């Protein structure tokens, strides 16, 4: 946001506001709430994404706990049928769209530019817009709780049960329109990150020298780029039916309810890889660092990631094996679904071989990564049992499926995210998380999650269907497989799991207050994001590094001894940092903050709100969109040089030329 000249890197640059488009001055604050709300800095945006996602994790988690309380015993009385149906719908929607996806966006935003040696993303303002749209979309989605009831059709919202007669509250409207907003956020974010990765890598960083996390994020952005429009179509059809009287899912008019299912799952299956691949990327960073070895078979991991992304487009109907597709379609989709286990297996194998022969350091981050390998495999293997279509017709819509997807989602995506927390916390906040609390965090979560979701395999194979607000003793059986017993275990497990997650929150709180700063390179890490301060300076790197290796940072620190083939240290991170500061770029121009992203994003829920209540409100929203769009278009992303004035004594700000 300003021109910063060494050696005063930490002093906020001072910008004199000039007018843009006659009315509004550019925001300039470098501290205080304004510095966050109007920021375009990918790191601040990343942190805001993270905080938002964490908040929604707790919301979704509390919803899950209510579900488990209700199901702990037969004929539960905690929730009534209506509330229960809203609860699991919103639990899933929140966890998937407002926790895992934004958390992945948080990591991606923060680390992709750092990992590729860039100073920001390709479109900084668009980045801010993505975040605000996500936040407002998430709030909008949850507003329904207070305005007559939330969506109650299950997270895949099958038609025609989502139609106006069958779901008469406004819940589904809020759901469809809210997801539309978060979809816009995802799409904008995807374009942004794709261009960033394609176009802004540091010199020398070919695609095959790109850190694996960045690779997986890139695959995910492509999945988003192409999957989001599909659900956009589906949601439009749904909204048009509910709000404007279209007939898309009206069977009386000849509609086929399977239309919705296809559109939803054409999006929905790529979506599950959107949820898992970022975590695959995270642990592919963590495992090599703490094994002190490069990732085994890097090109295989890259290509298998891409293959998963690609094949993931051809399997969607495995969610519809009982829908009546006809045997040919079922057979085809059964086969493609099995095929996808192969590239996923490649990853599991490569992670294990990365550790093989290493020098393993069991930090909390590493433990979570290892936990992912084992528990994701459990979930993946149950996935393979679903892919056998005839046997899936016994399993589908039972708790066996619920077990599958919580193992891949919690045992996969969430464990990966926690691994990322512990690994990158010092980078982002300049503080170490406590390893001892981390250990508690890890073990309680592992025990809790297995106790919660493990029994669901049994429940499902014993025939307990999902989405039942109550279950009955009459169908519970006796003895070892008694449903009452396993439901109780699952509910107890969920509270152990909660304690585990609380340990993390406690850890954050405790270490936050600890004044001790994290060392520069606490893990002896390998990739570029560690080649800068903790937290990074606003402009990330004093010098844009030139890349010669995959694991560039490691190779700057270590060299191979020609005779013994062991690695010996030739430089410390501190030395590398000092060298960078000496050679700092003279003149670094960062994008300026802007009002428009948040204004534009705020207009979206106004428009959708109006669609539900009164078109007049939508018109207001539309006007704001136009206004913000003009403001945006007419403001250059960086304030022109003449905007800057060197008027604060003691800071060495300079305008060159």
């Amino acid at each position, binding site marked *: 946001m300003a021109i910063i000249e060494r050696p005063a890197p930490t002093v906020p640059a001072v910008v004199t506001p000039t007018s843009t488009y006659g009315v509004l001055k550019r925001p300039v604050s470098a501290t205080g709430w304004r510095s966050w709300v109007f920021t375009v800095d990918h790191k601040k945006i990343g942190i805001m994404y993270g905080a938002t996602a964490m908040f929604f994790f707790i919301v979704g988690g509390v919803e899950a706990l209510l579900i488990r309380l209700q199901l702990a015993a037969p004929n539960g009385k905690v929730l*009534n*049928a209506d509330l229960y*149906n809203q609860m699991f719908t919103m639990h899933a929607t929140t966890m998937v769209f407002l926790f895992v996806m934004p958390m992945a966006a948080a990591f991606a935003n923060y680390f992709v530019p750092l990992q590729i040696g860039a100073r920001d993303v390709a479109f900084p303002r668009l980045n801010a817009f993505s975040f605000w749209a996500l936040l407002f979309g998430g709030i909008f989605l949850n507003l329904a709780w207070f305005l007559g009831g939330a969506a109650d059709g*299950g997270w895949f919202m*099958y038609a025609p*049960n989502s139609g106006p007669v069958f779901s*008469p509250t406004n819940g589904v409207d809020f759901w469809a329109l809210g997801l539309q907003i978060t979809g816009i956020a995802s799409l904008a974010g995807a374009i942004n990150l794709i261009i960033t990765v394609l176009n802004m890598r540091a010199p020398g960083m070919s695609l095959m020298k790109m850190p694996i996390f960045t690779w997986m994020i890139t695959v995910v952005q492509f999945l988003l780029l192409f999957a989001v429009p599909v659900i956009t179509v589906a949601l439009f059809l749904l909204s048009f039916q509910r709000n404007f009287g279209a007939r898309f899912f009206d069977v009386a008019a000849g509609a*086929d309810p*399977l239309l919705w299912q296809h559109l939803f799952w054409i999006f929905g299956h790529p979506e599950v890889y959107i949820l898992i691949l970022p975590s695959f990327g995270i642990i592919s960073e963590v495992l090599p660092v703490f094994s002190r*070895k*490069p990732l*085994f*078979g890097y090109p*295989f991991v890259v290509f298998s990631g891409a293959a998963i992304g690609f094949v993931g487009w051809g399997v969607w109907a495995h969610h519809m094996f*009982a*829908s*009546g597709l006809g*045997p040919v379609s079922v057979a085809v989709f*059964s*086969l493609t679904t*099995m*095929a996808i*286990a*192969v590239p996923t*297996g490649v990853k599991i*194998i490569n992670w294990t071989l990365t550790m*093989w*022969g290493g*020098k*393993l350091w*069991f930090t909390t981050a590493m433990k979570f990564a*290892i936990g992912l390998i*084992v528990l994701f*495999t459990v979930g993946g293997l149950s996935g*393979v*049992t679903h892919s056998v*279509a005839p*046997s899936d*017709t*016994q399993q589908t*819509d*039972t708790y066996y499926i619920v077990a599958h997807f919580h193992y891949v989602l919690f045992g996969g995506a969430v464990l990966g995210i926690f691994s990322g927390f512990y690994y990158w916390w010092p980078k982002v906040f300049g503080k170490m998380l406590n390893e001892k609390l981390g250990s508690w965090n890890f073990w309680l979560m592992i025990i809790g999650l297995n106790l919660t979701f493990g029994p669901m395999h*049994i429940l*499902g*194979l*014993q*025939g*307990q269907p999902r*989405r*039942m*607000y109550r279950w009955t003793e*009459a*169908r519970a*059986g*006796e003895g070892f*497989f008694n449903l009452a*017993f396993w439901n109780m275990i699952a509910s*107890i497990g969920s509270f152990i799991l909660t304690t585990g997650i609380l340990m993390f929150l406690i850890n954050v709180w405790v270490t936050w207050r600890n004044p001790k700063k994290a060392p520069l390179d606490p893990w002896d890490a390998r990739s570029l994001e560690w080649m800068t301060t903790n937290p990074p300076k606003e402009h990330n790197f004093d010098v844009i590094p030139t890349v010669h290796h995959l694991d560039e940072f490691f190779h700057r620190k270590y060299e191979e001894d020609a005779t013994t*083939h*062991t690695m010996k240290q030739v430089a410390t991170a501190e030395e590398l940092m000092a060298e960078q500061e000496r050679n700092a770029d003279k003149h670094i121009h960062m994008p300026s903050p802007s009002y428009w992203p948040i204004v534009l994003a705020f207009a979206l829920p106004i428009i959708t709100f109006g669609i539900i209540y009164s078109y007049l409100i939508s018109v207001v929203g539309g006007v704001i969109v136009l206004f913000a769009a003009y403001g945006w278009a007419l403001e250059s992303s960086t304030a022109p040089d003449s905007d800057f004035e060197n008027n604060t004594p003691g800071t060495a700000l300079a305008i060159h030329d």
Partner: protein
Amino acid sequence: MHKTLKSAVVVFVGSLVAASCATNAPQDTWQPKGPNAKLIDDLQQPVFAVAGIIGLIVAAAVTYTVIKYRDRGQPIPEQTHGKPALEITLTVIPALILAVVAVFTFGAIFKLAKTDDTEMIINVTGQQWWWEYDYPVQNEFGITSPIISSGQLVMPVGTKVLLRETSRDVIHSYWIPALNGKRDAVPGRVQTLRLEADEPGIYAGQCTEFCGLSHANMRMEAVALSKEDFAKWVANQQAPYVVPAKDSLAQQGETVFLNQCVRCHQVNGLMRADGTPAIAAPDENVWSGAAPNLSHLMSRNTFAGAAFDLLSKKCRDEVWGAPSNVVGAKYLAGVTEDCLNQKDLRAWLRNAPEMKPMYANPADLEISNGKYRGMPYLALSEDDINKLVAYLLTLK
């Protein structure tokens, strides 16, 4: 708590072994009772075994690595980047395993989709939140006029039954785990599901596609009867209406029924006081267009989407626990006054929506043009309820 711990240990030891021998839940998916379910089971058992073995291999490999290569102060290892040959081998092996699985899967898919060997057809219609069965005329089974029933699907053993499923409102899914996997009942489509039972018995099932408020309360049961018993059942279903004895409580009940219930519920053969047949018009009152046909209500064991028992607990256990050679006879005995589950039936008549959540609150009906989804609260007096119960008991 102690029990918890112990059981947790047991799981880790051998859930696979135990799966085949405990007294399981009635919807256990691993206990096929007919050829279609058996076909699935024969396919899934080896698949589960293979998956289990692969899981164990991965867990063992990770554990071994973690123990063997933990940091004992060894030097930083050589920075090797992988071994393509090993890599390819380990990619090909899973692919081969899956190819084998795929071959068997294909076989099963097409066998389960066959319809040309059907011996008997039953139409099944899902509706919020109960199932209707409609037996089209099939002379070889003595079905000379259509039979309409709900809740319990009655079928002959050893007969290839083809269900033709559809729905009147949203998607439901028909599932009797002991007999076959699920098939969705999709409005606007007719889809088929093969069922065949080896032995007489009652097999539990549950609607498995989320279908709104009372999805959890939408159950069903398949009752397989020996061919002779099935013939008896058919004959009874086609038996003419029995007018209640004059001046009995039941006859007063018939009057109440004609006043209150007939606008939705059909009872075949029931006449109005003026001698015209009483024809129900559920489509004018119920959004989805139908209400259960009550002609032979007391020949079934359950009501309201099999969510409640018509039989008292004791009598029910007797039927369900009966060995397969007598279960048919017990089932055909129907519900007698002694065996009636008075409590639930009365509660149902008193206030159905309280027993089973439904959209029956007048305030909710604007969007459905005043039509109910489910059975409404009818503000019946206890007196009327007594009469109705007496009447319903005559509907054998």
